[in-house]
């Protein structure tokens, strides 16, 4: 039996969510599902994600997962958003089974963000 429902990673991410916040005029999605709310913001330059931010109303695991996602995906190719899977985060953050549904909400949000970014890039190209 573990003493702590939150892993050290979750605690650290929750305590200092450096990527919490909104970005004006960025690509953005908002999701309201299962009593949770997530908003994600992305700016892309030269085929690279230059900034990711999130807002979230939910449990510490969701907030930590959102923060971890933003941290990890800055600097990557925006196409990767479409392939984002939450399974890695679930493991690295030791998300308890009963909460995996919440992290899937984040997965949905990220993929939606990927679509929004793709549409925006397409629009730029057009």
């Amino acid at each position, binding site marked *: 039996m573990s003493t702590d429902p*939150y892993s050290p990673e979750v*605690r650290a991410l*929750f305590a200092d*969510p450096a990527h*919490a*916040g*909104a970005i004006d005029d960025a690509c953005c999605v*908002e*999701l*309201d599902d299962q*009593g949770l*709310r*997530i*908003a994600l913001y992305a700016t892309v330059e030269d085929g690279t994600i230059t900034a990711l931010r999130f*807002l*979230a*109303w*939910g*449990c*510490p695991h969701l*907030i930590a997962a959102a923060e971890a996602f933003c941290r990890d995906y800055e600097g990557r190719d925006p196409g990767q958003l479409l392939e984002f899977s939450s399974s890695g985060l679930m493991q690295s953050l030791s998300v308890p089974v*009963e909460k995996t549904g919440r992290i899937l909400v984040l997965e949905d949000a990220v993929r939606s963000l990927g679509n929004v970014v793709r549409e925006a890039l397409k629009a730029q190209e057009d």
Partner: protein
Amino acid sequence: MTDSESMIYLDYAASTPVEQGVLEAMTAAMTIDGNYANPSSTHAAGLYSNVLIADAAAKLAGLLNTQPERLIWTSGATESDNLAILGAASYRKDRGRHLISMRTEHKAVTDPFSELAKNGYDVTWLDPEPDGLLDIARLEDAMRDDTQLVSVMHVNNETGVIQDIAAIGAACRDRGALFHVDAAQSCGKLPVDLDDLPVDLMSITAHKFYGPKGIGALYIADRKGVHVEPLLFGGGQQRRLRPGTLPTQQIVGFGETAAIAAARMHEDFAHITQMRDRLWNGIRDVPGVRVNGTLDKGFPGILNVSVEDVEGESLLLAMEPFCVATGSACNSKSQEPSYVLRALGLGDDLAQSAIRFSFGRPTTEAEIDFAIERYRQGVARLREMAPGRAA
């Protein structure tokens, strides 16, 4: 508290540390130099254990102003509630099978009633008013000729709401129904005069007022028709109402707990009132904050507050190093919003944002001030982080 020096405990409604005097009495009732003999034994050592138990019963009876013979030792309020409810329902089933309780009772009361409902009894669940109090008119309306038992708790474990058990008891007497009170949260903290109150059965437990966990009692009034069938069988202990070797150290600890509480009740009450008021005054201007229950008819050991647009679990983590409760400590492993708060009319989000602060003898002003700071910061931080509610 545990290995982390930095935890700050504001969860005295869930459980309390034992007083030094309680520890000493317990130690003397179990070590090799103490009275460890089985109180059922007839030899000198056993009889002496028995004297200690009689002394403890006298102390507890003194606290409640009743006779020691009226008290049955149990393993805690959960068992007392079960013995009272299942035991009385079965003893009085000839009178009828209608039972009345409230939606805001502790699980240790609602679950035995639900069990009876599965077995041919008819249970009426009364709703509280929005402030948590029972409107006696509702109770009177619900009463029937075959109502045999009514159970309403004294102090609510989540909100601290104090029910008017004298008035409820009087209504029960009028209609010939037995009245059971779960007093787990009030015993030793509010005056309870069983000689005067129209209460037939009362459940109490030591660990909510600085006694050991795992020892409780059931008061059974000395009145015609008041009786319970036992739930456990074996041995002749406790007039066959509750067998098993009497746990001397637990009972002696409970007795000492009662004696200390009797002496300190006013002082304790003044202290927790001050703590509660200080905390509330420090957070009442937080936008969207509200008291669950009622301040003026509430037990000041408990302050339950919800706040709009903040998620409860994250708020709890933001409150660290404070140890506080959401929902009831007794079923807080479930992630479900508290059914007690729901019964008061709160929606899921508000119920889930509820934090129960509860205060005890060791609580200090510095702890309260720090709690205020943490609460305000936590709410502010989480709100900043929250997206506007999607349309």
